[in-house]
């Protein structure tokens, strides 16, 4: 998501970066580019305008000051980033637990936003943290919404309170009330109440939502929003805010390429934080929402932290610890480690999603590659590494022509596949080295298509581009297409 926004920010900043001194006119130019990028990303017009004036207001009086700094464009970039994080909610907030259990969480939102799937994801997430959640089926309108919730509950072994069949039968207010009572009796510490989708302008159904709320007095009302929503985000969020009221927002379908301007609009307009993000159809495709990460993503810096965490979760403790100590001690990253990583990645699920979090994922070449990425490639790559001897895995430099031919034969791949794997591995190895030398776990070098705002030295960051560029070449989509056909 936010792809094109990142791209536009990137281009706006690279034009600015070429200039030694920034004048007031330059600022107009860059803010107007940011403005059109934000509009294309579906950020509400009013939010865009206030964002732009915030940037100008902060930057303009400081221009002289900024121009004295060693890197004025970096300074402006920081302002944009800070304001963006500010709008996206400042700091991440967690679920507020009730003083006296159970904690009651009510889900609301438009039709098709993804409430029922989210109920399952949230339950699983909370259960994995040692809670004992129960789901309450209050969507009695949409055909078989109750069945859906029951199946979801079964799949994660979370009980579902569903006394009514739904499909138009039953009173959701009553079910909600009974559900909370039941949960308290059965000592569940969390109750998640799924409700029917409704329109903000449907007065009758908004009143019903309010009745449900009043009946169960929830600790958290979560407003569930589809990340693909356009300018209506503001109208609907306001209607739900006034009609039912909500405490926080959940963004769904973030695994697509929607730029998700709604995230900016809703937080700005309603002043409510985005608490969670749903990123796929599996019940585990769910995470806390991190405003700072989202801002980095908007700015094209990639979502490195999320990637790191996803990686860590997938590795068994041993592998992770080994890798971490290797990383810290500066020991070389070998093909064996690479193999362990590949195995872990298979556990993590879709590579496309993970790779999308990498910095530079939004640049043209990388994006193309991601679109073409085929998860079966993982298995092929694994086969190649498995056909190597321990020595070759430790030290790929020994891989001469005849060794490569042998490996190709052993893994049933072409020699060119072996070559491209080695090339990619060397790139990754280099990147690991640079990450180690960079600060805060971010690679020192920015990806191609992204101007550099080096924290460290400029020379270092130029070098940082090399492995990425190579990576793009070796993933020639045309070649891949020819391969798989």
């Amino acid at each position: 998501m936010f792809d094109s926004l990142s791209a536009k920010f990137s281009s706006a900043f690279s034009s600015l970066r070429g200039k030694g001194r920034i004048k007031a006119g330059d600022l107009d130019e860059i803010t107007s580019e940011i403005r059109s990028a934000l509009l294309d990303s579906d950020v509400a017009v009013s939010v865009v305008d206030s964002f732009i004036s915030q940037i100008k207001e902060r930057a303009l009086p400081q221009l002289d000051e900024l121009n004295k700094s060693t890197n004025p464009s970096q300074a402006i970039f920081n302002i944009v980033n800070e304001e963006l994080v500010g709008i996206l909610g400042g700091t991440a907030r967690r679920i507020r637990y009730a003083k006296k259990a159970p904690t009651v969480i009510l889900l609301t939102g438009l039709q098709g936003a993804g409430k029922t799937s989210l109920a399952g994801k949230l339950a699983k997430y909370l259960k994995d943290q040692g809670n004992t959640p129960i789901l309450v089926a209050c969507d009695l309108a949409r055909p078989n919404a109750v069945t859906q919730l029951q199946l979801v509950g079964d799949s994660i072994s979370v009980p579902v309170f569903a006394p009514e069949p739904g499909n138009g039968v039953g009173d959701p207010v009553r079910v909600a009330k009974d559900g909370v009572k039941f949960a308290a009796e059965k000592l569940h510490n969390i109750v998640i109440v799924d409700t029917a989708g409704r329109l903000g302008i449907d007065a009758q159904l908004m009143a019903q939502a309010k009745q449900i709320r009043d009946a169960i007095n929830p600790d958290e009302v979560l407003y569930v929003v589809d990340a693909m929503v356009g300018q209506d985000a503001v109208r609907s969020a306001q209607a739900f805010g006034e009609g039912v009221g909500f405490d926080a927002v959940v963004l769904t379908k973030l695994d697509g390429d929607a730029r998700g301007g709604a995230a900016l609009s809703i937080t700005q307009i309603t002043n409510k934080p985005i608490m969670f993000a749903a990123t796929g159809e599996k019940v585990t495709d769910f995470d806390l929402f991190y405003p700072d990460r989202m801002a980095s993503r908007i700015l094209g810096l990639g979502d490195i932290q999320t990637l790191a965490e996803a990686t860590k979760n997938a590795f068994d403790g041993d592998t992770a610890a080994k890798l971490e100590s290797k990383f810290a001690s500066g020991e070389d990253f070998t093909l064996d480690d690479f193999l362990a990583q590949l195995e872990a990645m298979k556990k993590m699920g879709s590579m496309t999603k993970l790779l999308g979090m990498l910095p530079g994922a939004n640049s043209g070449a990388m994006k193309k590659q991601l679109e073409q990425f085929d998860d079966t490639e993982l298995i092929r790559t694994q086969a190649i590494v498995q056909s190597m001897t321990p020595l070759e895995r430790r030290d790929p430099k020994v891989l001469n022509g005849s060794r490569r031919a042998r490996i190709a034969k052993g893994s049933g791949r072409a020699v060119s596949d072996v070559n491209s794997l080695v090339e990619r591995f060397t790139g990754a190895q280099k990147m690991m080295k640079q990450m180690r030398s960079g600060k805060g776990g971010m690679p020192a070098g920015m990806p191609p298509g992204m101007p550099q705002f080096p924290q460290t030295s400029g020379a270092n960051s130029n070098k940082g581009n090399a492995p990425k560029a190579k990576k793009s070449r070796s993933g020639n989509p045309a070649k891949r297409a020819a391969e798989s056909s």
Partner: protein
Amino acid sequence: MAIFGKLFANLRGGKVSSADWEDVLQSLIESDLGAANSQSIIEIAKRERGESSEIAVKAALHSWLSEKPRAIAKSEGRTTTVLVVGVNGTGKTTSCAKLAGLLKRNGESVLLAAADTFRAAAVEQLQTWGTRLELPVISGAANGDPASVAFDAITKASGASTSYLLVDTAGRLHTKSDLMDELGKIRRVIEKVSPVDEVLLVVDATTGQNGIAQAKLFTSSVNVTGLILTKMDGSAKGGIALAIECETGIPVKFVGTGEALEDLSAFDADTYLSGLFDS
């Protein structure tokens, strides 16, 4: 076109302030038409004077609409197959049911295929609609192969000379190439028996600029022939549909205006355009 009402009145009187233009531009963007499209409407309006400005704007908007036919396909002498596709939660299953109802009311025989074998209770959802409509629904095992459900359905439909087969598919994001390939496979498998006549992409009226990518990518994998624009009963104006028509030439064929069976109507350009600019 209320957005333009004041503007055109002022134009006729010869006094349009830049704030007026800004207002119109903002309203256009707020209908999800896209910033660039909105800007070009303003430019078209500015180029002319007075009444001819009004005519020029209306003409431009009409010219953005697709010229392709908006009636649902009907093939004589064999089953007409309609594939219903789209991203998650847009209203595919509901629209399938509504469309089936519409066709049935027109005296057609209809078979429904529950080819969403992925989402929990998606099959049951379509079956419930089938029961309400008194129409048969073909389904397979949960988590089974959707293409084989589609194959069973088309075999049955063409054997029984059913006039329409409507295939409901699982919601999928257009960026997931494996799922898009699966859709391509469903289509190919059906076509071993009988051609697919319509592929209807269901687009939620609240969709923002991402709708363009949806239309393009679904088209490249299954060749979309029309749109169903759903949830037009809400506060969203559905301007993305005009942007999609303009960009891809795919026509909106039906509009969904509620959750009940009768809430589906054929697309009407004048109603749509006036709704779009009636704020």
